């Protein structure tokens, strides 16, 4: 746990008109860390996530990636810093093949030659096991496959910060396990932030969990500690879960 801090988000506030979605959240992430953000709907985790990825500019507060502020930066410039994002609803190029989707991501790394781009595409395809539907158009795939393809798209650029919004959403239990092992493997090269609803998935992968509630951070710590925390269970899991032994 002594790796350097690579993501510093301090006092992040995000207001949409009169609604304060994130109300002063701070978070520090170390290199190679795997962090899960949990919380009920509307807790602000997705908004916070979008601030980290540069999709939203926070109303107040500062976000430093490897020491540099991303305030005022365009989305593509944040991405070029080495940030890979999987959106909640998979955003793929639906009319293009799976291979072309991954190629476009691998090709975005500027110093790569054509051959290196192709080699990286093959590697990612192998790693995620996309070989079977490489020539299919992304729009024709089932949801679970799209989730995996989007993970491949994110990986092909070799980002050092990987932000995954609900990677296990809509997956079958087999696919969830597969996704979990892929996400765990990611930490060898990257700091990973996962927003997730699926508690089994969170238990499966998480080292550290941050629980959001009403725009603030309610609890932070090891997965077991946070998931058994009384107030987290109150706001997130509700009474039914608490009633269980």
């Amino acid at each position: 746990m002594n790796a350097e801090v690579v993501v510093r988000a301090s006092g992040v506030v995000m207001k949409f008109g009169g609604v304060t979605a994130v109300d002063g959240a701070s978070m520090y992430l170390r290199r190679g860390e795997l962090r899960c953000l949990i919380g009920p709907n509307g807790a602000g985790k997705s908004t916070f996530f979008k601030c980290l990825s540069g999709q939203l500019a926070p109303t107040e507060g500062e976000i430093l990636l490897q020491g540099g502020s991303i305030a005022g930066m365009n989305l593509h410039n944040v991405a070029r810093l080495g940030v890979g994002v999987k959106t909640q609803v998979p955003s793929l190029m639906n009319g293009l093949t799976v291979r072309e989707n991954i190629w476009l991501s691998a090709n975005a790394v500027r110093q790569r030659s054509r051959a290196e781009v192709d080699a990286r595409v093959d590697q990612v395809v192998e790693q995620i096991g996309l070989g079977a539907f490489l020539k299919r158009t992304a729009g024709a795939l089932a949801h679970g496959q799209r989730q995996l393809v989007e993970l491949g798209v994110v990986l092909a650029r070799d980002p050092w910060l990987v932000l995954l919004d609900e990677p296990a959403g809509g997956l079958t239990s087999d696919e969830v396990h597969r996704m979990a092992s892929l996400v765990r493997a990611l930490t060898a090269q990257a700091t990973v932030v996962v927003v997730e609803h699926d508690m089994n998935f969170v238990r499966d992968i998480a080292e550290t969990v941050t629980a959001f509630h009403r725009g603030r951070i309610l609890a932070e710590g090891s997965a077991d500690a946070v998931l058994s925390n009384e107030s987290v269970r109150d706001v997130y899991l509700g009474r039914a879960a608490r009633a269980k032994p």
Partner: protein
Amino acid sequence: MQRTNTPRAVARWWHGFVATAAMMALAPLLFAEYTLTLLAIYALLALSLAFVWGLGGILCFGQAAFYGLGAYTYAVVSINMGGSTLAVIMGVLVAAVAALALGAMMFYGRIGDVYLGVITLVFTLLLFKYASSTAGSEYVIGQARLGGFNGIPGFPPMNVPGRPDVVVYGLGLYAVVAVAVLACWALLRWVGSTSFGRVLIGVRESELRSELCGYDVRLVKTVAFGLGGAVAGLAGVLFACWAEIVTPEVFSLGVSAEIIIWVLVGGLGGLWGPMLGAVLLGALKGWLGMQQWMDSGLVMGALLVAVVLFLPQGVMPALARLASAGRKEGGHER
């Protein structure tokens, strides 16, 4: 439009290219070159929008603006220079710069698709209005009077570069236009297969994902828009050489609408289909214009509705599907 780089696709494209070139070479044996030249210019104009809209996903309602700018620039520069060489270059350049500037304003300003359509449409109507109101003798660029609604007649025709006395007309002009069409087609097809072209197609498919990959969507779209403007400008230059007069009509709503109809009928997404659409619809309009019993606008509108309803992807993709279905039934696939 995506598997354009496989050896099979490349070979198929070359076959199509050679066949088209042969057809264009033989066409003057059957049809008047005067008509053929105009149809080829239409094809070039359709090609410019096919690239911008089909590959780049940018629906430009004002492609006529760049076409008209090319034509007007040719007329003005050729009058002042007394020859066509610089006028051709300037015509293309002015159209390209105008497209780049307008594109940069729209894409860097993050204008949404609907507003983009409105702005491009207004841009061409603005030019139409302006060109129409330049009748006074004070509207002069060098020695060229803009002439208001009557336009600019009597400018020097196209000549062999460096030889102002050797005029290119008739079959010669047709040959120049045909070569320009083929060259631009090959160029845009090649652009579509480069990294830039693939990124452009990616931007068409998902701007968000392209940005998350680190591509500057604004720059990519601006460059594509500028390139489309340049090709439309070249079409305008050639039109000026063919018509030997330019009037504000080149900026009109009718021209802009026609280009969109050509592309839609021919098949959005490809380059060859829209060119064919332009030639066929252009020929149909010419033929309808010769008779009195039916309004050509009515027929064009009905045709567009019919294509959108029954062949929503356009004529060429429908034919291609039919052909591949036939092959499968015949058991020849693979």
